């Protein structure tokens, strides 16, 4: 099978953090002969939009994004070229694969050997320090692209690659056991609504926390056993504890963008409980009472995306129909509007860009 690879493509480019996104029709495509060993070229079919892409676009994190930048890190497409002298490629031309946040890790340092690939000092991050998936073609790495199960169609798979993976891994490492309560602030959002499904698949009981009738309906349909509207509740900590047998949940997966979501969790968690901190607000600090963190034997763990194994497991669960992304399809050219809606907190579920539009 051979693909005709064009010299230029359509891509969404950010030249600096205060410049508008440019949809360019003449962005260069890397030729096969220019691919380094280990690199592959992927022709994208769909790509999800993550709040992190907004952070990359605004460059408002403690770590700098590259400029100019093609953002995006939840991409699904087909491999159309592989670099010469690539040893032992686990993928071949024509394979349908996913590109996630972690584009590359060395697989040979202490972190990689211990499975913490996302913390490799040489990690390359799609749509952050290497160009990503808001384009028709993306360069990625054969040893890190994730094969997509046949039964999962591309638009449905896209947001599993970051949103799904991230919450799945947080749940996996949370020490929560079957029958435990898990509180999910932001349960109606891109990550949250997937967290409900993965948690349910793992036999956990879900307390969904968010606001509004639309999100309440979504969360309940997806399996949340209880619901709290944080805008209608005066004392959130008390309400959460009451909802979970009067003792509080065993675990909280917090994807919030401000510190209060995390501090509240330390207060409402059951003794011996675990707070999985998943969000990445640039400036916020987690403030927790040292006394109660110790006295209640609370564990606070940071959980950051996932490794190759986590990604494969997250996709398998989705392929078996146990985690379905709620998404709206838009086009690459709509990206600016998507970011605006995100900034205003108006996105329920996920927005996926269909590259054929």
């Amino acid at each position, binding site marked *: 099978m051979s693909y005709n690879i064009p010299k230029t493509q359509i891509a969404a480019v950010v030249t600096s953090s205060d410049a508008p996104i440019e949809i360019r029709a003449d962005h260069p495509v890397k030729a096969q002969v220019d691919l*380094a*060993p*280990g*690199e592959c070229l992927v022709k994208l079919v769909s790509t999800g939009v993550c709040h992190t892409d907004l952070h990359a676009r605004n460059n408002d994190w403690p770590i700098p994004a590259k400029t100019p930048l093609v953002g995006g890190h939840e991409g699904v497409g087909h491999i159309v070229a592989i*670099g010469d*002298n690539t*040893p*032992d490629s*686990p993928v071949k031309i024509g394979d349908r694969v996913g590109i996630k946040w972690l584009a*590359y890790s*060395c*697989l*040979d*340092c*202490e972190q*990689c*050997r*211990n*499975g913490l690939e996302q913390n*490799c000092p*040489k990690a390359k991050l799609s749509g952050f320090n290497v160009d990503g998936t808001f384009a028709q073609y993306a360069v990625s*790495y054969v*040893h890190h692209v994730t094969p997509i199960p046949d039964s999962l169609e591309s638009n449905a798979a896209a947001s599993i690659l970051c949103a799904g993976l991230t919450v799945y891994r947080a749940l996996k490492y949370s020490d929560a056991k079957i029958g435990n309560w898990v509180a999910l602030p932001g349960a109606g959002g891109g990550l949250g609504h997937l967290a409900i499904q993965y948690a349910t698949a793992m036999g956990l009981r879900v307390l969904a926390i968010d606001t509004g009738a639309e999100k309440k309906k979504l969360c309940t349909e997806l399996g949340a056993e209880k619901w709290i509207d944080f805008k209608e509740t005066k004392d959130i900590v008390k309400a959460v504890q009451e909802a979970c047998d009067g003792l509080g949940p065993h675990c909280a997966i917090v994807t919030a963008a401000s510190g209060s979501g995390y501090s509240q969790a330390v207060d409402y968690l059951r003794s011996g409980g675990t707070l999985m901190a998943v969000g990445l607000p640039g400036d916020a600090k987690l403030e927790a009472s040292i006394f109660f963190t110790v006295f209640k034997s609370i564990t606070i763990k940071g959980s950051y995306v996932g*490794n*190759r*194994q986590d990604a*494969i497991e997250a996709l398998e669960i989705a392929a078996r129909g146990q985690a379905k992304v709620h998404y709206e399809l838009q086009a690459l050219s709509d990206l600016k509007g998507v970011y605006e809606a995100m900034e205003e907190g108006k996105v329920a579920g996920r927005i996926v860009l269909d590259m054929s539009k």
Partner: protein
Amino acid sequence: MTTTIPSTQRAAQIHTFTHPLTILPSHPVPNPSALAPNECLVKIECAGVCQSDLHARNGDWGQKPTLPRIGGHEGVGRVVAIGEGTVQGEGGDGGGDGVVEVGDRVGLKWLARTCLRCEFCRKGNESSCKRQKVHGYTVDGTFAEYVVAWVDYVTPIPDTLDSAAATAILCAGLTVYKGLKHCNARAGDWIAIPGAGGGLGHLAVQYAVTMGLRVLAIDTGAPKRELALSLGAEKWIDFKESGDNLIKDVIAATDGLGPHSAIIAAGAALPYNQALWYLRSTGTLVAVGLPGGKPLEAPFGLLVGKELKIIGSAIGSRQDAIEAMDHAVRGKVKCHYTTRKLEEIESIFAEMSAGTITGRVILEI
């Protein structure tokens, strides 16, 4: 640094199972220009002799080595050539903690390489990779002057550890170290180590002591007793003197309740079966040995009634090897060895079978 690589070398080869290894005086050296990407040629300085090499020689196991086969899987040497087209670092294999260069001193282990991509490798269980290559078994090994290895799998040897001291860490040390990681022990727990005077056993004693465990060494004879106690074992039992009373004696020696765990590298089934009788309830048996013949016998009354855990542990991953080596570098674990010559391999095997070797035998190649 330039090294002239000769075209022939001395090597010990398995030609026919159960027959003595053939010492080849002019075996061809692999052509350095024909090395594939990711391969390297290593000039061996020291090679350890492991009971598994004897099993390989005899074709004892279900899956046998491919013949003819240069034996050996525990070696330290210097990289003299690297395959053209090898990419380390960006996008390619290796190049994490350090790119392997010609002149580097590296360790070769049982696993010559694993795929690093399959479910087992992704989870860090490299020992279970189905596409593994094994030195001295499916690819040539360390009973030779020059052997082909893989840059993304060899273990770097720190400058402060000499080659002979590092050699046995690569298999014996690695195997018991990783096994101990699985024994569910906490500092202060008792661990029984049958075969404490042997190649793996005497290293297990030291790793266990480093982990804060209280060691009950089990073996026979004065030289092994002296060795085990000098390495930090708190108590000693001579299994020949105990005879039928071994189980009773082990329980009495460990607070009257039995040890919390046992790690066993023995080449016979009996010590494993005995462990299930003397282990404390909820205890763990870590089996790292590979006796042919009789299987483990685990009566349900013991397994379920005492809530025991039986864990099989095979060699280890790259990370385990680096950690095991680190303990040796910091002086917490020292291999006791005697040095012999490659040509003595058959008499070494005979002594091994007779149980007369204390510590490890390292061949100076």
